[in-house]
């Protein structure tokens, strides 16, 4: 019989169901975006597929009413938990004026929403690591008890900014959690051509912080380690490095064709580890989720996505001249 692993962590059945719903919602929004892309309605998609467990597990271990997050482009699961809505995500996909992330200025996946403490992000990878460390520094300086959570890919952990940011956090014992979502590829470049160490978390020691590698397909495991890291951070014990190992279930983005560089077996292995399926099974085996409930959930989600898509598609673009706004603070623009 399947063991209940979430209760011991203080996660109620409702909570894990909610987590599952968030994972499923992320997956379905993502899938819809691909359809819209293939139909020529949106120019670009970059996916969370395969990483929902890590994202949602982590996000639920944080306090979504006070913690700050600096997510990377795949983190739909994280931003959903932090309050970004399906409609807002669709507005971003369609690059419409109402998109709260950027008003349609940035590609989808470039999250940012101040009211939900989602720090604005860019495309150059890993720049968000020092930013998160800076927010954590502010937290410490202002004696607040919020934690800052930042994510990146394993390929991105080779950027200088990873090193410099992690080291700064280590030296100043800052309340920040650095989570590397290791999906074994950086576009076409496989893990072994990116890093020579066994685990990305091996790097933690060099920054004087704990490092841990967990199964990124299991939201409960990820919840556990992120919760521990958040507790440590809040207690003034400093930063943590967490690596979640998973699979990338789609091409890198809608501009990529992964069959150019991945074998059938590799792709099949990813599918076999699909975190949604796995979590669904876990919940069903524990009788927390039933097929009926799941179907209802699916239906609700599809209705929500349909509505959001419809809304976003109809919504207006920013006016052309809006491109001139917000270079500097308003008062200076006259």
């Amino acid at each position: 019989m399947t063991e209940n692993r979430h209760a011991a962590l203080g996660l109620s059945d409702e909570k894990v169901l909610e987590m599952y719903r968030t994972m499923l919602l992320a997956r379905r929004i993502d899938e819809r975006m691909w359809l819209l892309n293939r139909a020529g309605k949106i120019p670009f998609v970059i996916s969370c597929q395969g990483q929902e467990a890590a994202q949602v597990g982590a996000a639920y271990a944080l306090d979504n009413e006070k913690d700050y997050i600096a997510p990377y482009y795949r983190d739909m699961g994280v931003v959903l938990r932090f309050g970004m809505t399906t409609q807002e995500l669709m507005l971003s996909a369609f690059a419409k004026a109402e998109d709260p992330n950027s008003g349609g200025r940035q590609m989808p996946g470039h999250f940012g929403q101040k009211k939900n403490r989602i720090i604005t992000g860019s495309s150059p990878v890993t720049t968000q690591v020092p930013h998160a460390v800076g927010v954590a520094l502010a937290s410490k300086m202002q004696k607040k008890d919020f934690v800052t959570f930042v994510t990146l890919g394993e390929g991105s952990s080779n950027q200088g900014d990873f090193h410099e940011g992690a080291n700064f956090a280590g030296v100043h014992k800052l309340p920040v959690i650095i989570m590397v979502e290791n999906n074994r590829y950086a576009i076409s470049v496989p893990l072994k051509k990116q890093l020579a160490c066994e685990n990305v978390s091996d790097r933690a020691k060099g920054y004087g912080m704990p490092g841990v590698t967990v199964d990124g397909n299991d939201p409960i495991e990820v919840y556990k380690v992120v919760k521990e890291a958040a507790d440590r951070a809040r207690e003034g014990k400093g930063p943590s490095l967490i690596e979640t190992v998973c699979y990338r279930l789609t091409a890198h983005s809608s501009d990529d064709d992964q069959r150019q560089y991945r074998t059938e077996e590799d792709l099949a292995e990813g599918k076999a580890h699909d975190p949604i399926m796995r979590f669904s099974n876990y919940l069903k085996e524990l009788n927390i989720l039933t097929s009926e409930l799941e179907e209802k959930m699916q239906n609700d989600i599809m209705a929500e996505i349909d509505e959001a898509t419809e809304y976003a598609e109809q919504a207006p673009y920013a006016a052309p001249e809006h491109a001139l706004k917000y270079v500097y603070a308003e008062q200076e623009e006259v």
Partner: protein
Amino acid sequence: MAVLSYIDAITLAMKEEMERDERVFILGEDVGRKGGVFKATNGLYEQFGEDRVIDTPLAESAIAGVGIGAAMYGLRPIAEMQFADFIMPAVNQIVSEAAKVRYRSNNDWNCPMVIRAPFGGGVHGALYHSQSVEAVFANQPGLKIVIPSTPYDAKGLLKAAIRDDDPVLFFEHKRAYRLIKGEVPDDDYTIEIGKADVKREGDDITVITYGLGVHFALQAAERIEKDGISAHILDLRTIYPLDQEAIIEAAKKTGKVLLITEDTKEGSVMSEVAAIIAEYALFDLDAPIKRLAGPDVPAMPYAPTMEKFFMISPEKVEQAMRELAAF
């Protein structure tokens, strides 16, 4: 003579140089098995193997810095930055190191390296996949910066860059990659770096530009010719250091000068072109030196409305040319 796309001309230049000189090799993100995100290195991994077409870790400062080391040793690296926007982490290596190796060692060491990067907008690339970054570097003696506009130039200039004994930044307009086609000789030719090229002779107005702007200007020139306006078009090709002589000559030719760049206006390469003209051909001018450029905002937005507003186009170029002619 075959008709090739701009990107195929680039691939061909690398292929020929790698066949010709075993010191030439490629390093960058996804340049190997995938053949580059734009396919610029397509087929080279298969032909030359993973030792000469190296998929590097995702770290631009290392791509540049490791390339510099190999170049100082005597190899001829071609480093690809996946997008010009992502050259920024490598600025220290490029500006503090590559540009200064020869000078600081009093000619003892040198750095024969090419850094290729796709730049430019109009491809729904949003802020970070659309930028023109040349102005960041076009003030660093020791560097050369090349931006070809045609497949012919692309091949000849890239080959020259690979053979150059100093570091060359080679920026390729990503919208030109498949849009622009042209005749490219099969034989082994190079084009001298540092020389601008008259792409069209004319008498009424002078247009100085580079990259995609050349094509926009050529198209607009065709149209305004019907109204009897004759445009002289100079393609800078090397945008640092500039070909002063050619610029002065082109400006003097008509006395009315329009400078076009897709980059944001203030501090662009066109500022230097204007300054050269104002310093050396002032009394030959019959009109203020006009600049057509992107607006001074951080970068090109994603939404099509705003992207179009930002981006130069044949229409915007035509209008600017007509206005200048009417001056």
